[in-house]
């Protein structure tokens, strides 16, 4: 059940809508329904806040209104040989600038230089009192005032409605290719990942993909075309096993499918879990205990995050999963899930609750955005 739907065309109109609402939730393109579907809330459809307001390739900065589709941003950057190094998710599905920041999720490419948090320089948002607030600065380095841009990363629309964001961008590697080793045992794959990740070769992406025959390891290397073959060979030598090399379209489409969740069944809930090579085993144990060892999943970005496709027919078990994750000190964000699947988009173990409560009190005293 949604309340009124607003379609503000400016920050001032967002502020007005917020001031007039009891409970209000922003929606970007709607790619992550579990994140914005809140019972009884007014909906702020941000699709009219659309457009790149400033792009300065020589500054490595781009500024866009929050409802701008990331696909548009990426296309503009690509024309200048630049990209968003955090590798946003669901770009083709229609993900927006504000939605990406609020979800705080990154693709496999975040391995190379960092995540969205590391590339968000400035934000404008409307807080729960209907005030328009700016934080950060539109330059690549800044230490003035509290880091409000970082606070908005992962805030899920609960601390403010973003209206404009400035990102740092980087030059895109001249060319990329991917090495693949199929069917590894998990231990073996993690060990190999550690070897390749130790620095001799700089890696764009490193994912372990769960499949019927074990784990496929996929390692993407990018840089100057001239040096690429030698570097691929060096990585292959480190792996010391049979590898296949994907280049050109095969390489591009592999990673595109990954971040568009094309590997997950369309009706599955997609969860993101922060991970480390040391906690991957704990997640495997949780899944095994719930008789879910066969669910599609990827350990992504050098095993720093897992994407798990939780099957639609087991959606009722998300509450059981929630409890099991808490016990194992693991956390999950339901990036894509049916609106009513979980009472909260965040499952499992949480930290920082007391600080968050105080920040919510400061930015949204009346609880207009709901609480996380």
């Amino acid at each position, binding site marked *: 059940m949604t309340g009124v739907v607003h379609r503000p065309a400016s920050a001032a109109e967002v502020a007005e809508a917020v001031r007039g609402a009891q409970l209000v939730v922003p929606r970007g393109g709607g790619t992550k329904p579990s994140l914005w579907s809140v019972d009884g809330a007014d909906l702020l459809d941000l699709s009219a806040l659309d457009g790149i307001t400033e792009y300065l390739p020589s500054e490595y900065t781009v500024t866009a209104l929050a409802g701008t589709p990331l696909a548009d941003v990426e296309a503009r950057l690509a024309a200048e040989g630049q990209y968003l190094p955090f590798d946003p998710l669901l770009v083709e599905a229609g993900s927006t600038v504000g939605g990406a920041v609020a979800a705080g999720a990154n693709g496999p490419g975040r391995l190379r230089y960092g995540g969205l948090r590391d590339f968000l320089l400035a934000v404008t948002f409307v807080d729960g009192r209907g005030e328009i607030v700016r934080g950060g600065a539109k330059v690549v380095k800044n230490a003035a005032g509290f880091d409000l841009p970082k606070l908005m990363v992962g805030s899920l629309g609960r601390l403010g409605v973003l209206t404009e964001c400035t990102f740092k961008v980087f030059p895109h590697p001249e060319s990329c290719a991917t090495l693949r080793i199929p069917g590894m045992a998990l231990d073996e794959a993690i060990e190999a990942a550690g070897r390749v990740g130790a620095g001799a070769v700089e890696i764009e992406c490193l994912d372990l993909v769960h499949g019927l025959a074990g784990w496929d390891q996929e390692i993407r290397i990018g840089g*100057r075309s001239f040096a690429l073959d030698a570097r691929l060979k060096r990585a292959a030598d480190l792996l010391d096993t049979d590898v296949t090399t994907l280049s050109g379209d095969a390489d591009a489409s592999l990673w595109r499918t990954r971040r568009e969740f094309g590997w997950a069944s369309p009706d599955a809930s997609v969860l993101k879990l922060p991970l480390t090579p040391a906690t991957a085993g704990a997640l495997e144990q949780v899944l095994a205990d719930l008789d879910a060892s066969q669910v599609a999943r990827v350990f992504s970005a050098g095993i720093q995050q897992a994407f798990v496709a939780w099957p639609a027919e087991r959606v009722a078990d998300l509450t059981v999963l929630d409890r099991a994750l808490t016990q194992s000190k693991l956390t999950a964000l339901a990036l894509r899930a049916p609106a009513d699947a979980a009472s909260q988009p965040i499952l499992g173990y949480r930290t*920082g609750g007391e600080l968050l409560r105080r920040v919510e009190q400061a930015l949204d005293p009346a609880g207009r955005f709901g609480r996380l």
Partner: protein
Amino acid sequence: MTTTDAAEFLDALTRRLGPDRVLTGAAPMAAYESDALTAFRARPRAVVLVDSAKEVVDVVRLCAAANVPFLARGSGTSLSGGSLPVHDGVVIAMNRLNRILEVDPVRRTAVVEPGVVNLAVSDAAAPYGLYYSPDPSSQSVCTIGGNLAFNSGGAHCLKYGMTSNHVLGLEVVLPDGEVIELGGDSLEGVGPDLVGLFVGSEGLFGIATKITLRLLPKPETYFTLLAAYDSLAAAGEAVAAVVASGLLPGAMEIMDNLAIEAAEAAVGAGYPLDAEGLLIVELEGEKQQVAAESELLLEVVRRSKPYLEHIASDPDDRMRIWKGRKSAFSAVGRLSPDYIVQDGVVPRSRLGEALTKIQHLGEEHGIRVANVFHAGDGNLHPLILFDGRVEGELERAEELAGEILRLCIDLGGSITGEHGVGMEKRQYLGEMFGDADLDAMRRIRLAIDPGELANRGKMFPDAEAPALLSHGPHPLEVAGVISRE
């Protein structure tokens, strides 16, 4: 606070820590009265030397109960007055909390106490081929706790970012003594990025007692290029050309003639004395990649027509080049009895414009300014030279420093890239941000710390400022422990 309450409060601190670790009185506390911005001094009520996180919690709770302001102090190298004591407050000296609790080569993380010195982290990680990337010039003395409070940077932060980009998890004592955990040990998180909010909060949100840092594999090789130009503008244009070429160097630094001269006199780095602008560009990474990139870099830099270029021939040569750069601050200090290290950011395409204007401003005020800066990210460090013994010079230098900050704001930049707002730049925060922006920050501060006990009086413009009291070198500088690099 009545005299009896004050005595009772000190008693309680002493009962908790023992008399040796509670310093009171002018002489024992003298070294804590200012930080590296020596123009400010303040006398605390007491300095406590804590040995454990538990003691930090207990001291904070005692302060909260007695409504006494406090601040954590690392090595006191803040250049913005950030670790200046709060008058009549408690200084919690963190230096003894200096254990590296864990280095995990698989996760590539280090868990440290906040008093650990920046360079010690890289030293501990070195056996695993890892290092801690942010490299402030003060890295052999400054602490991770201080780095965290200011989101400190260094010459090599262009590619992999500042402190904030390398902190994964925290244990924090909130200003009322409540202990919380933030983040974790993964690069990824879920929910609002509270670690990101805490880093750079200048000690206003409480005290970090345990910090999980990300380590990076050491670059396999470096390619370090020195290029000399007959104008600063030409050096600036070379930076723009490198950026436009699609290369991503690990560092891009520029020094002006005054800085070159001083550095040369101090360490003999082999810099050309007649250069008006000297550019240092460094590529880092794996061999094949750096080899391929270095060809492009040379091509791009040659097009900018330096009158002299020099490629570091071996690691020693490279160290010599960097030694000159890193000693530039203290070297410039030799040219003048006093100086202010300023820190501002401009969009890098406007570097040339900013430098020209700074030169004019200096001439107008009759004050010499030397420039050393992180050109790659537009982070200026004008060094304002003055003589504090000459009546009015300190005030004129401060005025010039302020005008430089306004210039940064006008050009669309920031009043600080890495040294923080602290005490020094409070009045400019309100010029960079609007009322609603500051109000939101203030509300967050008050929700976290209603009594404004943690580092009271810093960062926000409305707080009362102490008078400019004195000048001269930092006590640690006198003791030869630090120098202003």
